[in-house]
């Protein structure tokens, strides 16, 4: 046989799962991101006493597709004085980084592209942090003041909060004792408890830092629309802009997946080791079936016949998914499918909850100012994260060397870190009080550089 052909065949034989998964990620994530946007708009509308998108498809269900088509055919504007090469490249970098890092994430025990990479979690974090180059270079290449200010803010913000996020992750990794994603989840199964209960402070720090890393409100300063118009993407339009947008939402999925893997038990169902809670296994199927039933109920109330059909279609899809989730439970020969399918369900559910939290915060909170953001990162989160890492380390030594009860040891770390947090906040208040009592006259610019760090 031709050696080249042979090599190709061997390659395909060895790697076909990974290749297919990779293609699926690249193909599906943009669609998912589009629908996350729709969900976000719908939720925002619901919280703001209005309806949100209603025109395209029943209840606006086809809105993301309409948006995508519009963005694709929109004129692609490149400013005259822009640095063309960098301007072209920047959004692609953002998007690529987010999608690549998704390769190492395990969406359930069965769905992972880079299976045996030894540094799984580090890979995800490291590669997703490369997305910053897209933002910085895009902001620089646009040759606009707003863009470059957005880019500068973004750099400072990411560098600061990545530190806090990394330290928070270390607390969790100490507990897991490995960087492999699968092993991290296994460790939680072995412990019989999600790490969020053992290291709640670390989880909290990671939540805050991950909001900041994904540039979401209340930390969306790089693109703060009321100050910097759109920050680094001011000059972008059409599909390039859409790439940034997709990158941002893909990043949300990534940070959600990291938090889920490390702190929320990955694809484990709640109470994974408690035998009498096994009825929870039926929940995924019941849940999707209930969604389907609701769609059937709503189908009759649609004003237009097309919409009724559409609702029936959605209901049907839900029932099919429910069936897929239920059949392996009931039919013995298919039992081997259960962990994979249900794992994926729980994993996606947890990510969704995490992203929902992001959205909820966005609709509720005002935006931080840049110096306040830096202050929060450097004066509170980072010291807190350092103390937390130390405390968790000490607790683990207490447990392993001195045979302390694990819960007692971990409770101690939490108490210690919370006390530190209180102390830091007090310190912070004092500083703020001192600053306001000194009341610097507005003409006198303070010498504190808000980009410090």
């Amino acid at each position, binding site marked *: 046989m031709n050696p080249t052909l042979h090599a190709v065949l061997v390659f395909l034989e060895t790697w076909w799962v990974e290749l297919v998964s990779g293609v699926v990620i690249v193909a599906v994530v943009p669609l998912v991101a589009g629908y996350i946007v729709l969900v976000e708009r719908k939720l925002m509308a619901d919280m703001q006493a209005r309806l949100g998108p209603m025109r395209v498809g029943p209840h606006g269900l086809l809105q993301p597709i309409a948006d995508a088509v519009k963005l694709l055919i929109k004129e692609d504007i490149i400013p005259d004085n822009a640095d063309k090469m960098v301007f072209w490249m920047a959004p692609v970098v953002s998007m690529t980084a987010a999608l690549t890092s998704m390769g190492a994430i395990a969406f359930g025990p069965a769905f992972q592209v880079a299976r045996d990479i030894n540094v799984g979690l580090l890979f995800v*974090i490291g590669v997703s942090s490369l997305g910053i180059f897209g933002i910085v270079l895009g902001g620089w290449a646009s040759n606009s003041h707003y863009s470059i200010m957005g880019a500068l803010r973004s750099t400072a913000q990411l*560098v600061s909060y990545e530190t806090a996020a990394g330290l928070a992750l270390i607390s969790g990794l100490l507990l897991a004792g490995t960087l492999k994603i699968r092993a991290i989840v296994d460790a939680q199964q072995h412990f019989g408890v999600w790490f969020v209960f053992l290291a709640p402070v670390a989880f909290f720090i990671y939540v805050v830092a991950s909001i900041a890393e994904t540039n979401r409100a209340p930390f969306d300063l790089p693109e703060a629309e009321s100050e910097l118009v759109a920050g680094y993407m001011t000059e972008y339009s059409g599909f390039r802009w859409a790439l940034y947008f997709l990158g941002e939402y893909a990043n949300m999925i990534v940070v959600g997946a990291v938090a889920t893997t490390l702190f929320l038990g990955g694809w484990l169902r709640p109470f994974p080791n408690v035998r009498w809670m096994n009825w929870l296994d039926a929940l995924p199927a019941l849940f999707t079936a209930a969604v389907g039933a609701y769609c059937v109920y709503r189908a009759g109330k649609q004003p237009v016949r097309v919409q009724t059909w559409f609702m029936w279609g959605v209901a049907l899809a839900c029932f099919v998914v429910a069936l897929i989730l239920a059949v392996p439970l009931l039919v013995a020969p298919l039992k081997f499918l259960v962990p994979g399918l249900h794992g994926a369900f729980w994993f996606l559910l947890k990510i969704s909850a995490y992203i929902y939290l992001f959205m909820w915060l966005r609709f509720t909170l005002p935006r931080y100012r840049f110096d306040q953001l830096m202050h929060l990162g450097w004066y509170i989160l980072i010291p807190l994260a350092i103390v937390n890492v130390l405390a968790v380390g000490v607790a683990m030594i207490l447990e392993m060397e001195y045979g302390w009860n694990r819960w007692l040891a971990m409770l101690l770390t939490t108490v210690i870190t919370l006390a530190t947090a209180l102390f830091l906040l007090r310190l912070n208040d004092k500083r703020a009080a001192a600053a306001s009592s000194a009341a610097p006259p507005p003409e006198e610019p303070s010498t504190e550089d808000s980009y410090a760090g």
Partner: protein
Amino acid sequence: MLDKVIFFFFAGVAILSAGLMVTRRNAIHSAVFLITTLLATAGIFLQLRAEFIFIAQIILYVGGIMVLFVFVIMLVRLDVALHQIQFSRQKWVALLVTLALAAEVGVMLWSSRNVPGQGFLLPNAVPAGKLPPNTEALAGRLFDAYLLPFEIASVLLLVAMVGAVVMAKKRT
């Protein structure tokens, strides 16, 4: 076969972008090519199954140091640099140093041609399963055999960091 293709791809990218990095006039472009070089090198590390080095390269050099590089470059006015002389004129010295370096590398490669497990130019890759997981191996080494040097190094870094903070505070 595939290994070779991947290796030559990464190596080619690394060398090409290194050359471009040196010759670009625009500092941001240089930075972009430096990033590409570093990423390509990281790719070679990954191919060698040195996963930890790979990710350390990406997180520290690309994600950390290069971000700060770009950050600083953006704060500096580029048009000033455009009018300055790009290369220093000591071409002969540079040539001499390059030749010396090339000779050293050549001698090293030539002398290792007979060492088992390494070829003249293309080292034979070790099969995947044979290597111990190198993150754990590295950690074991660092915190076991080389604990003291490791700690000394970290104290040094800490001192440098504190020093930088003190200097920055003094200036303002």
